């Protein structure tokens, strides 16, 4: 009897599931012998680094992988299929429900179509691309409803869609109903996605990194919404993420994946507090909050500005009409005054669109400022020509966010690193420059031989190191690090952050570290600058800004950060 009860609590039972992906000439074991259950009304989090197979596992459950490239050598996915007969939806409906355990792997395509959307719904990471841009958002919710309830009239579908939109706390649902996706913000789009997924009252919601593309304050709101909806509706959520902070916010139970295997799972608190598997331990130790704190420099007497920015404006004109008249400006950077002190790590934080990247580029004169002044060692940079800037170029360098696009894919690493040296007359011969390049490679903990490779042969973390090596090759005094760890997995991020500190100490560098990740800021930086809508709202020592924020926006930002609650 107890056996049966346990089994009826399970919404999904996955047993020894294997999903192999077939590419041209190799088989990738994307999911390798995974067994776990999702209970009714719980949130199960799958956490793992990129390539660990967590998304493939989710797609296997809903059977969305193309049969051409994937197959399941073994395993079963038992789903408790609740079939409704009778009319209507919601509280007042008169319907009988019967439920039946089905193996998702054995179902036919038309049965799967009945389950998808109505019983198992899915939301994706990118709210930009998962909505159809030519239909209004309300129609898209209605379409999902009518597909699974053809007996519904248009009016009642519209009413249901409006209710769904109100449930995800979209203000003015009536007017928003006729909006097109581009008229909504990222957070609102993700809400619409959730409304669409929930319209048919599914039993299981699969959420694949739903908050990763969102700003931290928006993420906090969406997570709160999902928690509330789950409690109210009693559905189960399979939540996929790479962020342990999010896990601790939302999950009842958590599973850690590595290379297709579910290496550990259990109650969230247990796993986060007391991980058993060495890999989970390593992952948790790499979370910036858990990294050993470094000694922060907090000595006003030694402060001497290396770079000073005064009243800097960067405006982008908005042109309208047939004559392309400038009607207004986007004020990306709006009257910013900042001193960057020598030998410090300064963090520049802000949400997307706050102008932090533009400010970084404007300091390096990669983006022409509209007005204001940027001085390095008391030399004015604004207004200099390309040739006049050249001697200053080697003093200040930049390292970029996207490891895919930051290196020229057609050039050997050796060429990428030595060419700027040649232009700035560092080293007397090609051989000497190659030797210097090899030394820089060693400084970023890469092998000398890597010089003779092309960028595509490296992983994301290695590419970020090469990007740093390129910046270091010119012996700069000042480096702008533009979100250099944002695209990296948490363990790689920890390595790069530690490397950055070592290099900074060895070479007496000054770093401007642009990021949106407050945890990284708290770990790494001496001073922090907070930007919002092109303006600096707060600056000071990191401990003061993060520990005791004065500005209301900073307070909101810091509170929204998903913390590991142990």
């Amino acid at each position: 009897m107890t056996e049966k009860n346990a089994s009826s609590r399970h919404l999904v039972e996955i047993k020894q599931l294997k999903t192999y992906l077939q590419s041209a000439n190799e088989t990738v074991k994307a999911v390798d012998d995974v067994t776990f259950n999702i209970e009714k009304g719980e949130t199960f989090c799958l956490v793992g680094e990129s390539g660990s197979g967590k998304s493939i596992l989710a797609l296997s459950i809903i059977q969305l992988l193309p049969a051409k490239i994937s197959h399941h050598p073994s395993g079963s996915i038992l789903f408790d299929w609740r079939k409704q007969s009778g009319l209507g939806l919601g509280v007042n409906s008169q319907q009988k429900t019967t439920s039946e355990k089905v193996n998702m792997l054995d179902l036919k395509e038309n049965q799967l179509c009945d389950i998808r959307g109505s019983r198992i719904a899915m939301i994706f990471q990118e709210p930009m691309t998962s909505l159809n841009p030519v239909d209004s958002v309300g129609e898209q919710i209605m379409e999902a409803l009518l597909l699974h309830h053809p007996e519904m009239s248009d009016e009642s579908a519209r009413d249901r869609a409006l209710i769904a939109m109100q449930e995800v706390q979209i203000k003015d649902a009536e007017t928003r109903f006729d909006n097109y996706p581009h008229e909504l913000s990222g957070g609102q789009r993700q809400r619409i996605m959730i409304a669409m997924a929930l319209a048919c009252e599914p039993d299981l919601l699969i959420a694949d990194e739903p908050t990763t593309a969102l700003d931290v304050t928006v993420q906090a709101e969406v997570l709160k919404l999902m928690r509330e909806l789950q409690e109210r509706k009693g559905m189960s959520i399979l939540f996929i993420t790479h962020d342990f902070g999010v896990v601790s916010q939302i999950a009842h139970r958590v599973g850690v994946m590595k290379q297709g295997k579910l290496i550990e799972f259990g109650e969230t608190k247990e796993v986060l507090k007391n991980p058993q598997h060495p890999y989970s331990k390593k992952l948790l130790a790499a979370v910036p909050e858990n990294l050993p704190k470094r000694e922060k420099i907090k000595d006003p007497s030694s402060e001497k500005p290396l770079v000073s920015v005064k009243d800097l404006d960067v405006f982008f004109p908005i042109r309208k009409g047939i004559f392309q008249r400038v009607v207004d400006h986007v004020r990306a950077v709006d009257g910013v005054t900042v001193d960057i002190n020598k030998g410090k790590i300064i963090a520049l934080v802000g949400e997307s669109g706050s102008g932090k990247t533009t400010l970084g580029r404007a300091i390096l004169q990669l983006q022409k400022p509209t007005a204001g002044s940027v001085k390095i060692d008391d030399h004015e940079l604004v207004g200099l020509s390309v040739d006049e800037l050249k001697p200053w170029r080697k003093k200040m360098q930049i390292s970029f966010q996207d490891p895919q696009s930051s290196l020229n894919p057609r050039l050997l690493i050796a060429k990428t690193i030595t060419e700027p040296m040649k232009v700035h007359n560092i080293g007397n011969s090609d051989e000497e420059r190659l030797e210097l390049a090899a030394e820089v490679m060693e400084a970023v903990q890469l092998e000398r031989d890597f010089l003779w490779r092309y960028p595509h042969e490296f992983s994301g973390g290695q590419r970020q190191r090469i990007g740093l090596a390129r910046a270091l090759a010119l012996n700069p005094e000042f480096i702008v690090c533009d979100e250099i760890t944002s695209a990296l997995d948490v363990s790689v991020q920890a390595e790069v952050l530690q490397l950055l500190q070592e290099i900074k100490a060895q070479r007496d560098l000054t770093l401007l570290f642009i990021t949106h990740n407050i945890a990284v800021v708290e770990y790494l930086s001496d001073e922090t600058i907070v930007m919002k809508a092109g303006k600096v709202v707060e600056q000071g020592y990191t401990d003061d800004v993060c520990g005791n924020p004065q500005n209301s926006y900073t307070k909101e930002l810091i509170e929204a950060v998903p913390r590991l609650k142990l």
Partner: protein
Amino acid sequence: MDNVKHRSSGFLRRVLKHTFSGWGAKIGLMWVGILVIAAVFAPFLANSMPLLVSLNGEISAPVFRYLSVEDIVVLIAFFVLILLFLSPLRHSIKSLLLFFLIIIVGSTIVSKQFVTVQQNVVYSDFREDIKATNYDWVVMPPIPYAPEDYLRDSQATPLEAPLENSEYTHWMGTEENGGDVLSRMIHASRIALGIGFIATGIAMVIGVILGGLMGYFSGIVDMLGMRLVEIFESIPTLFLLLTFVAFFGRSIYIMMVIIGLTSWSGYARYIRAEFLRLRKMDFVQATIASGLPLRSILFRHMLPNGIAPLLVGLSFGVASAILAEAMLSFLGLGLVGAPSWGQMLNQAVQSSTFNWWMAVYPGGAIFLTVFAYNLMGEALRDAIDPQLAKKAGVVG
């Protein structure tokens, strides 16, 4: 540094390998290869004079006496290219190109000095000579008829269907004047190839430079450049060619230059669009931040990353240049003396009776050549496409 030079063409080699892994591109390449061989060795493949004769133990090669400057330059260029390709020394593409150009110009000047132009060659003399003189042995070309050899001496009727005459074998028959169709086809392949490569080469150089500057500087430069592109796109090439033919006479070189000068706008658009995208990419920003000179940013960092769609356009461009020449010749505005495929088609249409062999062979050759270039263009596009390139290991 040896290591660098050996691997410096990495991307191109990978793309080419991938391009020619499919059967379509292989067939295309094979057909173009046959055309190249035919074009280079045309005087040795189809000619009325013997390749080698031995008279009383003395061996001589009459065919060499009748080679034109053009024949010699094409031969030298072909062998130099083969040598450069096979040689273990790897230099930058720039120095190789320069070396190749010097060789071509040099050999043209030298052969101009030494080659005496043979005028009014009477081809029937060779046949009579062979019959009259008591040679030990004679090696004739595989097709023993020159394109302008109208066989006045041997045939009663000039027009013959393929393999009609048992005494003289004409694999593809003869045209109205008595010239061997296969021989004319072989010699005409030179025009087809030359016009394709040189016209698109000119177009590409202009397109890359103007498009690159437009894309990199954008703003006012881009605005003016695009207007120039639009002006050139509105020039009707065919009428311009007709006018030039009327004023300056018929010259294959003028045709090449005009087709090249009027068709660069498409390439400029491709490169401009690519450069507009690349300009904001991080690695280009990094080169600017490193203070690299403009020449290096444009041609070393941006061009190799933006050339992919151009290469595809290039192979389609070659095909359309061949078609343009064929069309002109078909309209009767091509070259007078030398045969070309379009002109042969024109002959077929103008003759009083329809002779299928005069239309099918040149028409088929034009079709196959354009088809071959299109096949290679398609394969190249697939190889360069990022989705497929990912599978091939080019990206990530």
